[in-house]
């Protein structure tokens, strides 16, 4: 039997007095219907459990990164064997947990965090062992090896989280290729081979789970990022410098995002709406990366064209978002659509990006807590965390402070979700 969402039930409850007043239903019938639908209420507990687990994994990653930074700060006092043990321990723990999950055929709440943690732990192990042995290493090879070894993990654990990490690694590998001024085909070919490796998962997962799910949405975002980056790389390699290629990628992604946002609106569950704007973070980060390095007075024609196109696209998306918000009567959509405007201002005003992200994050955090929406609350935490991380890592801040900030962000994730769960449970108990 189909479940009824909380928003639908609230709407129905608000309509009942009018229906009774107009004589459409008898009060006793209305009461019976209300009881019927209240019994079918889907409070999203199952989805929330998975969601909270995934967000907790993200908090765990921040926590782990913070602890590694604190350890790494002073670990030349420790013997080499201990340092190597610390470097590889997260990977070994993730693998043992992985074996347990596969053997016991655990559900998605176990599979997702364990599979997602594995490539991150592998990357950390490679970086830290390289530090212990003073190996400079090669970023391209590291990302390529990690992505290649993540591929079987995606299929074995059927993990969307691992898939997103895989696509990210693949895209970072593509970024690393930008350093090659005269790349040979064999050096860029792995990017497209990694692409091919991911396609069966995309098709299988979307066919089985559909697109209107959290997993389906994340798959589309990751595929969009990687595909648009590949195209940006392909179009721009011979003619543009690396900063302009990043902008071109942001432009292409922006276009895809706008298309998907408006064309795909009908198939999307209302709960997913807040996640749709996650796509905006990609151009935001790309701009933050490239604008820091670029010097507008010395821009050449190619860069100016790309920048003009990008700004036009930002403006178009913003206006379209505002119109859409007006049609829906939803202030949130209007604010979300203004992210691009905030980015454009941030390009001119120093530190505006930080304040913009903090303000936007604070808004979503407060609104998420108010409406008891885990998704919106965590989106707020992600925005605040992004602002803090970008600002802190942009300056020569002590590693202990960096470590502590990462730990605080990780604990923040846990605390916010814990408090929210407690609140949801107490309200449920009151009902």
């Amino acid at each position: 039997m189909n479940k009824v969402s909380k928003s639908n039930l609230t709407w129905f409850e608000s309509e009942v007095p009018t229906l009774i007043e107009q004589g459409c239903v008898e009060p006793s019938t209305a009461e019976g219907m209300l009881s019927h639908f209240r019994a079918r209420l889907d409070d999203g507990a199952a989805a929330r459990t998975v969601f909270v687990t995934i967000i907790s994994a993200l908090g765990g990653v921040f926590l782990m990164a913070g602890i590694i930074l604190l350890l790494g700060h002073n670990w030349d006092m420790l013997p080499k064997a201990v340092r190597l043990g610390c470097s590889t321990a997260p990977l070994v723990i993730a693998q043992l947990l992985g074996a347990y999950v596969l053997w016991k055929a655990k559900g998605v709440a176990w599979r997702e965090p364990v599979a997602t943690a594995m490539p991150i732990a592998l990357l950390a192990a490679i970086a830290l062992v390289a530090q212990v042995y003073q190996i400079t290493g090669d970023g391209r090879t590291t990302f390529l090896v990690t992505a290649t070894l993540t591929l079987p993990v995606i299929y074995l654990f059927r993990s969307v989280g691992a898939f997103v990490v895989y696509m990210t690694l693949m895209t970072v590998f593509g970024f690393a290729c930008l350093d090659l001024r005269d790349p040979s085909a064999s050096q860029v070919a792995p990017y497209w081979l990694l692409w091919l490796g991911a396609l069966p998962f995309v098709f299988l997962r979307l066919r089985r789970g559909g697109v209107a799910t959290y997993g389906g949405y994340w798959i589309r975002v990751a595929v969009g990022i990687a595909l648009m980056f590949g195209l940006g790389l392909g179009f721009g390699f011979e003619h543009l410098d690396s900063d302009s290629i990043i902008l071109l990628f942001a432009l292409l992604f922006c276009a895809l995002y706008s298309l998907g946002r408006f064309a795909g609106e009908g198939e999307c569950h209302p709960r997913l709406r807040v996640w749709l704007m996650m796509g905006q973070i990609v151009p935001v980060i790309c701009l933050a990366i490239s604008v820091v390095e670029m010097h507008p007075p010395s821009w050449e024609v190619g860069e100016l064209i790309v920048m003009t196109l990008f700004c036009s696209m930002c403006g178009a998306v913003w206006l379209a978002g505002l119109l859409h918000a007006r049609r829906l009567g939803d202030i949130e959509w209007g604010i979300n659509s203004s992210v691009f405007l905030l980015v454009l201002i941030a390009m001119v005003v120093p530190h505006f990006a930080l304040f913009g992200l903090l303000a936007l994050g604070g808004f979503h955090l407060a609104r998420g807590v108010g409406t008891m929406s885990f998704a919106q609350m965590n989106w707020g935490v992600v925005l605040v965390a992004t602002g803090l991380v970008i600002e802190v890592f942009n300056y020569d801040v002590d590693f202990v402070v960096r470590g502590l900030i990462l730990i605080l962000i990780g604990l923040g994730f846990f605390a916010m979700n814990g408090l929210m769960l407690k609140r949801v449970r107490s309200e449920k108990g009151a009902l």
Partner: protein
Amino acid sequence: MKRNRRISLLLFVVVSAVMLTVPGMMIYNSVRAEMVGEEFKFRIAPRDPVDFLRGRYLRLNVQPEQAKAGPGFADGRGSGLGFATLETDDEGYAAVTLVTLAPPKEKPYVRVETRSWYRTDDSEISINFPFSRYYMNENKARVAETWLVKHGADKTIHVTVRVHNGYAAVVGLYVDGKPIEEVIVE
């Protein structure tokens, strides 16, 4: 169902083993080079940047930055992997006699990254050694940086490296023959 689970687990064990092999091989190659590798001293000029994940390090401008290019590099081949054949010069420092596309036989060599676009001469090629970073505790690295900016120009700085089968393990960074860690304490 149980058979599928066993196959999945078996595959995962293989993948996990390969994953562990990556840091494992890094450790093995470094330990092997430390134990049985031939020692070379490379002249360097350090600078001090930051790695977000791994902390603070001194960037080493390892010398030489260019070397004679072997067959295969002359036809416009791009950046990639090369093998630098090593010798010790009259002053006791490492010298690169030739950079080739394949490892030389019976001579010490190290894997290098070749960069053809900096070439000033068709017979030479730019090289990057795989030990261009020297990681230190962030406070020590700051002191080392300040010290090297003030006094580095008058000193002889070198990095000692042990080389085995193309892999290099850094032994230490030395200023006038003393480890940098001791120099900054003084």
